[in-house]
């Protein structure tokens, strides 16, 4: 297995290098000038030229790319054009909220959706199944920002139960940490609960129709045991894949939630960098996210062997 992991990790290097080249080129071909944003409308052409010079934007693109690549190879993701802070520091500040909220959402979704999906499959065609599937469709169709604002106005403004905005690290104490986590996590959970419920229902239903399940029922095995041990274990691989894909997409796609709840996460850092044309930040974020995607995919692949003994690395 170790050889497999190493092979997979080595395979990420060309992937990330390709991502880096594409991102760098795309960004520099996009219209927009950081110097213009810094200088404002009062800046003269000479001012702008000197700001660009100071930022290193006057150099040929190839030279800028090679310079950046050399920095990255030395473990330095560069410095923000605007606030002069190291990109690695900015990413470190921002990755925690996104990861914590992403993991909370997926944990909550798994806890709620898998039992719901199993029940729906078990009771397929009944009113319970129809109710669960209808709720899933509604939850999936609701725009995230709408759910977010509704929760804010009910639970923060009216009831004052939870804070409107921001993130507090665990070091600030459990009360602060959890109170800031509830609404943003709940907001996005609906969609993932809906997705996972439907996915679980479909895969469990497929397993339930297999011959070995009929045999298990014929031998008098209790229904909860059939569902939990046999059906769910055999349906686990696609569900775990879905959870992994969900977590990967959450990391980059949580930006709406981060915007609605003013959470300083990686998604907002990326959007702010795009708006400001802060190239080093954007390049750094995309590199880190690419690495995370690769890592999550690797973990998913490795987890398959836990559920299916036929899979070995």
């Amino acid at each position, binding site marked *: 297995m170790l050889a497999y992991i190493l092979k997979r990790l080595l395979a990420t290097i060309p992937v990330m290098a390709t991502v880096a080249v594409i991102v760098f080129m795309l960004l520099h071909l996009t219209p927009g*000038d950081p110097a213009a944003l810094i200088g404002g409308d009062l800046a003269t052409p000479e001012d702008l030229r000197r700001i660009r010079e100071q930022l290193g934007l006057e150099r040929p693109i190839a030279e800028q790319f090679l310079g950046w690549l050399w920095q990255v190879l030395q473990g330095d993701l560069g410095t923000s054009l605007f606030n002069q802070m190291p990109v690695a520091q900015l990413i470190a500040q921002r990755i925690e909220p996104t990861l914590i909220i992403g993991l909370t959402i997926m944990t909550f979704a798994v806890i709620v959706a898998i039992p719901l999906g199993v029940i729906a499959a078990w009771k397929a065609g009944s009113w319970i199944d129809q109710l669960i599937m209808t709720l899933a469709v509604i939850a999936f169709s609701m725009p995230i920002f709408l759910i977010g604002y509704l929760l804010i*106005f009910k639970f923060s*403004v009216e009831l004052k139960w939870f804070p409107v*905005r*921001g993130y507090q690290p665990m070091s600030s104490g459990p009360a602060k940490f*959890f109170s800031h986590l509830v609404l943003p996590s709940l907001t996005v959970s609906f969609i993932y609960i809906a997705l996972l419920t439907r996915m679980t229902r479909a895969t469990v239903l497929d397993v339930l129709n297999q011959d070995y399940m009929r045999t298990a029922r014929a031998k008098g095995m209790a229904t909860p045991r059939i569902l939990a041990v046999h059906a769910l274990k055999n349906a686990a691989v696609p569900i775990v894949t879905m959870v992994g894909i969900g977590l990967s997409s959450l990391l980059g796609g949580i930006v709406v939630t981060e915007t609605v709840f003013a959470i300083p996460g990686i998604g907002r850092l990326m959007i702010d960098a795009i708006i400001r044309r802060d190239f080093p930040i954007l390049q750094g974020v995309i590199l880190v996210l690419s690495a995370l995607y690769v890592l999550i995919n690797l973990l998913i692949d490795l987890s398959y062997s836990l559920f299916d003994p036929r899979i070995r690395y």
Partner: protein
Amino acid sequence: MNIRINFARAMRAAGVVIATSVATTALAQDKDTFRFAAATDIRVIDPIWSLEYNSRNHGYLVYDTLFAYDSKFQIKPQMVDSWTVSDDKLHYKFKLRPGLTWHDGAPVTAADCVASIKRWGQRDSIGQALIATAGEIKATGTDTFEIVLKEPFGHVLSALAKTGSPVPFMMPERIARTSGFEQIKEAIGSGPFIFARDEWMPGDKAVYKRFKGYKPRSEPSDFMSGGKIANVERMEWVFIPSGATAAAALMAGEVDWLEHPPSDLLPTLQNDKDITVRAVDPFGMQTMIRFNHIHPPFDNEKVRHAVLQTIEQGEYLRVLSDDKRSWEPCRSFYFCGTRFGRDLAPEQLLFKKNLDEAKKTLAASGYKGEKVVLLDAVDDAILHPVTVVLFDNLKAIGMNVELRATDGATIFALMLKQEPIAQGGWNIGPQYADSTNYSVPFLNNALRAGGVGKASIGWPKNEAIEALRTAFLKAPEAEQGAIADKIQQEAYTASLYGLTGQYKQLTAYRKSVDGLIDSPIPLFWNIRKK
């Protein structure tokens, strides 16, 4: 039964979480911390290098100035204790107030101020003019310095008191020696608040702590002048990208002041008994239509004139707010209500929408249906609605308009392009500005008319205006008003740019906030939480 017991436990646990959350929210309302939800994030902490408004606003917390304007636009000493001007108006001698110290504990010296003036003078247009006119700027003692001019310059004190970007903020010499084109790394000032760099999270919040060593003036606070007393221990600027969330945070008491509440939520905020909604900026923003003067068709004065004949300011202002109290037509190139803001617009020329006349003017101009590229910053709450009105009006008079719609950052970069349309250039686009620079003839960037290289975006060329701007710079105070008027008249005649009115941005704050200073710039001294 077991299920019931577990449910009851879960409910109790939830109750604890909720109770602690409520306590957390209550804690957020403490009197020693003031939370300001800024309209934009502080991106750069060097207010000389960056000309962004938010860098300047940050500067007013951290730094102090030598002189400052009061609410009657009178120049008052701030860090300066006393000063003299020679009879020939060529020697300015300044003495600093005793006891001024930097945030790092070092005393403020005259050498610090000289270096600061020189650094600011590299970036600021009036500063550049001052430096060019000055034979010498030098420290003459620990707390005295002088500016010796080669010829009279009527704006020495007003330049040192200016409020528009970049403001001549004073910094320690070791920092001020940095080139004006290189960003400083430290934010060490002598102002009422210390910037807590270790707590700065760009894109989320910036934190300032009360500077216990600050020595305020004895006079009461009056606009930018007087005692700048910090009444709260901690100031947090938070950036909340969603307007609805920002409004909710204000209503929930998580922030004390919301700089720009979203217009659709104003009625909700106005109905909240704990919130005050009003304009703290007495002048607001001017919106305007900028032409690209170097390419057809707007290199033709008559074509520009035809566009100006379509302007009825109310039409442009109503799309920004349906609350008439928040806007006023203003036909002055300087902000109405400021020192030079006089309405001298000729009735027959401007501001009465007359599409028939505009069509006639356009036909007489020789316009042959050339494509006109109109820039549209779709993510800008002010520029986009103004663009839509302008688009309709240009179409109405028969112009061949093409809307180039994209984000504000791209539009800003496009506006700097001098290439013709075929190579990605532009023809026309709206813009807005606040009163801090645009109420003074020399500082109003849109009035710079020196052509390419010596004018701002659009690059108009008008020798009469340029000569008057130069004359304004040298004129003694008594003559400045007349010159400002002449600049306006020339600008109307040349149809330099279109004035689409003055819009007051409403702001919202909790009623527990006391001592907010009316200003175009959010100011934080004097503020107290009841």
